[in-house]
């Protein structure tokens, strides 16, 4: 299936949950905030959240800012 | 906003240079914000029935005076007289009697007053917001209520009975009037009643509070000085002319856009000098007795206070013009007050 992560299309060979996605794609482990199809998914729910074809995922974190 | 100590220091400095400096700064500020316009209004005493015993007032409940309350046909005559002098802003006053001059009475007076005057203000007993709303829709634009003194102890000493005893209710009156939609609110302290610096400072705080909560209202302040009324003087401290001028000048400097009112308690000479410094509103052709304009002979009149400035409206207008002032009878045509 294909999902879009941070604006780029990614092909997934197997069905994955959000926890797997985060550890696969993010090099940092802490302070990752996820928004799936416009909805915020808290970390406790990541392992139960299965991705589906066409999902739009945003992974954001803190950076320097004014 | 100055601190209390700064105000006290200014008021205690009686050197001619400090008074003159303050007066000139005040005059400059007044010209800048008001030009040379002086608003004129006329008082109309509708009733001297009073349920409060305020030791310093000619109308107080224990004073043996002839109690009178004007009925519509009577106050209509008074209004016609005042209107004929050119006055367009009327300040209707009553003693503090919820029984004799209730809201219904005041509403009727407001409706009739609106036939003759563009601006209708009341200086009566403190009321609830709902009552002020009723008065507003009946045609009242402004409310005048003086706390007299902000010293609670002294307040309790001079207000011996009646609703006026309730300091907090009185204090909240301008807030309730503003909530009801009143456009003009006038506050004041009775100088001489209590410590001057304390009261002036507390008055400033009261105005600041109101300005922050109700920024759209036009505020004005008055500094009546205790005067004799048939009996002996009741002031505990003397606020002499120098201090008086300083208070008025300082008020102008700290509150550039707030109106400063001077009543006919003060002498014509002092009034004229203060007009050059900071005063923006004066009463003209005043009579402070119920029925005093057309209904009673002078010997039968019981004034609330003795008037020092007895010039007629026409004389005041001529005087103002001769000094290059701009007498203003009204700022607007009739406005329908809706909630």
């Amino acid at each position, binding site marked *: 299936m294909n999902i879009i992560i941070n604006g780029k299309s990614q092909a997934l060979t197997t069905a994955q949950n959000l926890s797997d996605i985060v550890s696969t794609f993010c090099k940092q482990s802490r302070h990752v905030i996820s928004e799936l199809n416009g909805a*915020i998914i808290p970390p406790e729910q990541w392992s139960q959240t299965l991705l589906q074809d066409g999902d739009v995922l945003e992974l954001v974190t*803190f950076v320097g800012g004014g | 906003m100055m601190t209390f100590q700064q105000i006290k220091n200014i008021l205690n400095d009686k050197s001619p240079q400090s008074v003159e400096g303050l007066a000139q700064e005040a005059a400059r500020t007044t010209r800048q914000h008001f030009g040379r316009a002086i608003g004129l209004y006329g008082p109309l005493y509708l009733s001297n029935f009073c349920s409060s015993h305020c030791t310093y007032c000619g109308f107080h409940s224990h004073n043996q005076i002839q109690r009178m309350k004007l009925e519509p046909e009577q106050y209509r005559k008074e209004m016609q007289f005042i209107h004929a002098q050119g006055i367009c802003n009327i300040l209707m006053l009553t003693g503090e009697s919820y029984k004799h001059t209730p809201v219904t009475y005041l509403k009727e007076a407001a409706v009739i007053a609106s036939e003759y005057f563009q601006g209708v203000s009341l200086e009566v007993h403190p009321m609830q917001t709902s009552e002020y709303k009723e008065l507003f829709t009946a045609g009242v634009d402004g409310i005048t209520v003086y706390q007299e003194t902000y010293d609670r102890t002294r307040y309790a000493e001079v207000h011996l009975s009646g609703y006026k005893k309730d300091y907090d209710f009185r204090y909240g009156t301008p807030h309730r009037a503003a909530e009801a939609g009143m456009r003009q609110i006038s506050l004041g302290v009775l100088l001489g009643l209590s410590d001057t610096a304390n009261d002036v400072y507390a008055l400033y705080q009261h105005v600041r509070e109101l300005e922050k909560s109700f920024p759209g209202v036009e505020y004005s302040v008055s500094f009546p000085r205790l005067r004799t009324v048939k009996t002996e003087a009741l002031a505990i401290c003397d606020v002499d002319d120098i201090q008086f001028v300083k208070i008025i000048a300082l008020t102008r400097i700290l509150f550039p856009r707030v109106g400063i009112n001077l009543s006919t308690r003060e002498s014509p000479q002092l009034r004229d000098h203060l007009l050059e410094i900071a005063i923006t509103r004066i009463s003209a052709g005043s009579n402070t007795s119920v029925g005093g304009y057309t209904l009673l002979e002078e010997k039968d009149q019981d004034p609330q206070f003795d008037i020092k400035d007895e010039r007629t409206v026409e004389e005041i207008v001529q005087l103002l013009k001769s000094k290059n002032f701009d007498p203003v009878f009204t700022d607007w045509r009739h406005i329908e007050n809706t909630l």
Partner: protein
Amino acid sequence: MTDTPLVIAGKSFTSRFFLGTGKFKNKKDLSDSIAAGGSQIVTVALRRIDLDHHEENILEHIPPHVTLLTNTSGARTAQEAVRIARLARASGCGDWVKIEVINDSKYLLPDNQETIKATEILAAEGFVVLPYISPDLYAARALVKAGAATVMPLGSFIGSNQGIKTKEFIQVLINEIELPIVVDAGIGAPSDAAQAMEMGADAVLVNTAVATAQNPVVLARAFALAVEAGRLAYLSGLPLERFIANASSPLTGFLYDDIPTN
């Protein structure tokens, strides 16, 4: 003479110098500047994680006792600001948010109206909202009503280092608004910060000036000292203006004549 603490949303702070974390050359400068300036509140932003490069997590360089204030930078509307605030809260790092809604790439001026809308929504959701606005009394009053925790009027354009160009308008807010007033944006030098504090501002927020300085750590310390100096000056009650009399046309000579007026 000691100051009372700055209290925002019930939390007490002894430092009135907020630091922004954007534009620093490196993370060490940032953490050293926070330490040197003694800031207890710093702003951060949210951005998409760069999946291709490993970025050091900025939060590793901010001491845990410091309150994080997430800036909604990037938001062009109230809705976008609300989204960013909710994302930030989901991190578990707190719910303090600086609302910055800008739909103007030329001057970076904030949209007061959208800011008010965002404040209403977020304050109702329990966020501690610090809205950044052009100094406007009506907007500030609306923000008080909307539940803002402070009001943050700009001193001059973001990143411009021009100092306090909106002095009189900020003074109005200081005079009329009961919430803490934090001057934000445009503060270029410690003297600007001192000026804001002398006027009676409750705190200042500085970013560009420190981050882009030759020696950010030293400048951060200078700012902290300036903020303290300005604050003490304000508390001491700066000397009263003297009112000078012009001798040629006296207004009060009559008071000293022998003829009594009363």
